[in-house]
């Protein structure tokens, strides 16, 4: 079973909020010094999902990431978890693309890799959180898409997917190949083992430019973008602290539960 996982390198979400800065002029985030970017949370879970399928059914995992040359780190991270190969898609033309442009580039790279049974993406990225690339990519590749997976099984040449819903889950089946976006409920990603760390360390990660994947200039042209950022501002945070009390721990718990119910 061959899987391709699309991963994104993002600014570390663990940065203390007070240290998070943006440049309103360029409408971009200013990365703080000394904080290495990391793999986007849900994308890492997508890698985990791919690894679990590989543990059971063998096959090959290929990871691609569009971004700067530093994205080599997230590819290596995926390889340390159990992926076999990886490519970084880096080109000045790829910078600041919207979801459509990104999906186009990823689609071109996936077509170049070829021979896949499953494409995995995170449900949305930890930075912009648009959650669109997966669905657009499926459209480009003309394959089915299933979103918000919390469990993926390969059953009789089909994929059986447990989808997380607001009030529970549903189970659907899709043929191979399909694209699935992975949700956090799939569980903690594995810690790379000794073998993985060393494999990743040695692995050379090729970098593909626009011409390597045969990308046309027009979908990459910013003038053709579907999304425009009009302004960017920091969210204001307000915290209120209230101690929920009660005469007994049980009573306090009841009071707390009531408050939570009201807030929901």
């Amino acid at each position, binding site marked *: 079973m061959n899987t391709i996982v699309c991963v994104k390198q993002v600014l*570390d979400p*663990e*940065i*203390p909020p007070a*240290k998070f800065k943006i440049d309103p002029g360029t409408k971009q985030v200013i990365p*703080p*010094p*000394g*904080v*290495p970017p*990391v*793999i986007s949370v849900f994308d890492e879970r997508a890698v985990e999902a791919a690894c679990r399928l590989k543990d059971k059914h063998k096959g090959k995992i290929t990871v691609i990431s569009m971004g700067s040359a530093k994205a080599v780190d997230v590819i290596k*991270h995926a390889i*340390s978890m159990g992926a076999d190969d990886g490519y970084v898609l880096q080109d000045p033309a790829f910078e600041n693309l919207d979801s459509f442009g990104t999906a186009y580039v990823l689609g071109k790279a996936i077509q170049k890799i070829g021979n896949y049974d499953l494409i995995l993406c995170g449900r949305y990225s930890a930075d912009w959180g648009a959650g669109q690339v997966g669905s657009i990519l499926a459209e480009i590749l003309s394959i089915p898409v299933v979103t918000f997976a919390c469990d993926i099984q390969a059953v009789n040449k089909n994929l059986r997917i447990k989808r997380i819903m607001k009030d529970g889950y549903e189970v659907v089946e899709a043929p191979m190949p399909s694209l699935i976006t992975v949700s956090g409920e799939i569980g*903690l*990603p*594995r*810690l*790379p*083992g*000794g*073998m993985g*760390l*060393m*494999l990743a*360390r040695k692995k050379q990660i090729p970098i593909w430019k626009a011409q390597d994947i045969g990308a046309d200039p027009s979908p990459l042209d910013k003038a053709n973008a579907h999304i425009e950022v009009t302004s960017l501002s920091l969210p204001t945070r307000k915290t209120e602290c209230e101690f929920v009390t009660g005469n007994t721990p049980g009573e306090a718990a009841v009071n707390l539960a009531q408050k939570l119910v009201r807030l929901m």
Partner: protein
Amino acid sequence: MSPVSATYWGIPGYVIFWALFAIAFGIFIRRVYFLIRLLGLGKPENRFDQLRQRIIDMLAINLSQWCSLKTVSFKDLSGIGHALMFWGFGVFLIGYVLFMGLREGFGISVSSAGSLFEKIYLSLMDLSALLIILAVIQAAIKRYVTKPERLERKEDPKEALIENIKMISLFTTMILLMLFYYWMEGIRYAFNNITTSWPPITGALASFLAGSGISQESLSATYKTIWWLNYLLLLGAVVYTPHSKHLHPLFSSANILFKPFGSKVVLEPIPLEALEAPEGSVTLGVSKIQDFSWKQLLDLYACTWCGRCHVNCPAQLTGKTLSPREIILNLKEHLMEAGPELLANKGTSSPEVQPKTMSKTMIGDVVAEEEIWACTTCAACQEVCPSNIEHIRKVIELRRNLVLEQSKMPESAQLMLRNMQQRGHPWAGVQSMRLRGDWTSDLDIKVLTDGDSVNTLFWVGCTGALVERNVKATLAMTKVLKASGVDFGVLGDAETCCGDPARRAGYEFQFQMMAEQNIEMFKSFNIKEIITTCPHCFNTMKHEYPKFGGDFKVVHYTELIADFVRQGKLNLTQALNAKLTYHDPCYLGRYNGIYHDPRQILEAIPKAKLEEMERSKEQGFCCGGGGGLMWIEEQPGTTKISHMRIEEVHKSGVEMVVSACPYCLQMFEDAIDHKGMKESLKARDIVELVEESMKKS
């Protein structure tokens, strides 16, 4: 009157003597050979370096009995009894060889009867016998009357009964051997009509027998009977010891001979070639008993069941299931069970086969995972162990297997290790976290950039750079360094973790990569000397980096400041006016023997009144934060180690607990907060007090 030259049932005495000797020593050697072959199941490890020094150390420790005397306290005097037995039996052993083996067995006399040497030596034996009897009585009282906690074990009744029978037989044998000795010598003196006051007890017994009018024939016959009984008893002991823990004079001594040099806990890197080997052919860490090195297996034989580790382990004392003693004893039992079959399979096509008789998995059935994750690596166990057993090394080897091969660890450990791997430090997700290097802003400090060269680096460490409370100590440190005229640089946001939490949690490759990266960086700045505030960074860089090619002079700041105080470079003038106690960080004290310098600094601060806690210096009690446990959740339902320690601080009646380690500071801040002691007790770092005391008014 020689028993050996007589004839018994037509058989010459010496034939019986040597036949019995051959049987007993045959059994002894066979057993010891088997035990040594079991050691051969282990992996190779070089502990034969500096052999001369090793032999000198072992003789010094053994002959002086420092091994058992180092833990003597008013509460536990048994070390003295042990020393008396050791010296007493040493004298007897030589006596048995000289007077029984050589004189009776071979007919060789090393000294003529009545010579000065013989008089002195027999007097020595005479007194030794008395001391041995007293020591045995003390041991028996200890075991059956006062019953200290350390000797208690949860065993099934059958095993406990067998153990009791063994111990009682042993005590009886030792006392009988001594009584037989007096009796034999008394008769010999009486038979030969020697009256003497030296040896005193033998002499007195001889005069009593001479005066009692017993005939020469009965004396001679009795002598022979006792002589043979004594001989049988001795040979019985020779047969028994290698089948029991009482072979420890041999294996504990060997263990001291092969003890680690340098730091208290020596961890071996996993060679990277291990990963080149075909999958399944190499185990990362230890998952089967034969994955341990021979030295780690020797540890198991060296255990004397004294239980000192058990009663000093902070995990055990706070109600966790971990007991360093039980780990050692359970592993030994496992080795004994699995060993024979492993030996039989050794050399066959697949040496790694699991013995059929054994359904036990080592991690899980022999040592439980929760025990493995409860260790703070504080080394209290190793400090008190009379046999230099390396408990911590084993725990780390087991963690390595869990993390690197099985990917099994508590979630909290996994989160920390993921942070180490992705972010280069263990602190992500912590409230009030700072950004690496942001503490340097607005300070006139040399932050190293590419191409810089500096002799001395101030290595801040993750906690000192990232955690708000600890940054205060870092800032104090920079002021102290400047005031003392030290020319230093810092790495700012280029600093990463030294790797210690990864290594202690078993994530060895992550540690090795970090060590290599750091060493490379230090070399690129031509750094020769590193000053650290964190004892964990200190220990790692001082003792563990050299194995990766990083030989730097590593100094802990307490050593440095103590030096400045002694040289008068730092004048501590502001009075502190507080009663305080010093908590020894494990990695500074036990791991590196730095007990004096921190205290000297505190004593140099005017009006600081230093009180010692009951558990301090070598016996210092862990704060609970070492070995990765700063981030790994303690076993639910048990007391937190830091809470127990803060109670001890509280009991000492001080208003300030001072440490020299960022982990201790963190743990104490938390514990003080949790216990609601914020008003009455403050946690401080020494360097903060130093900085305040040097301020000009």
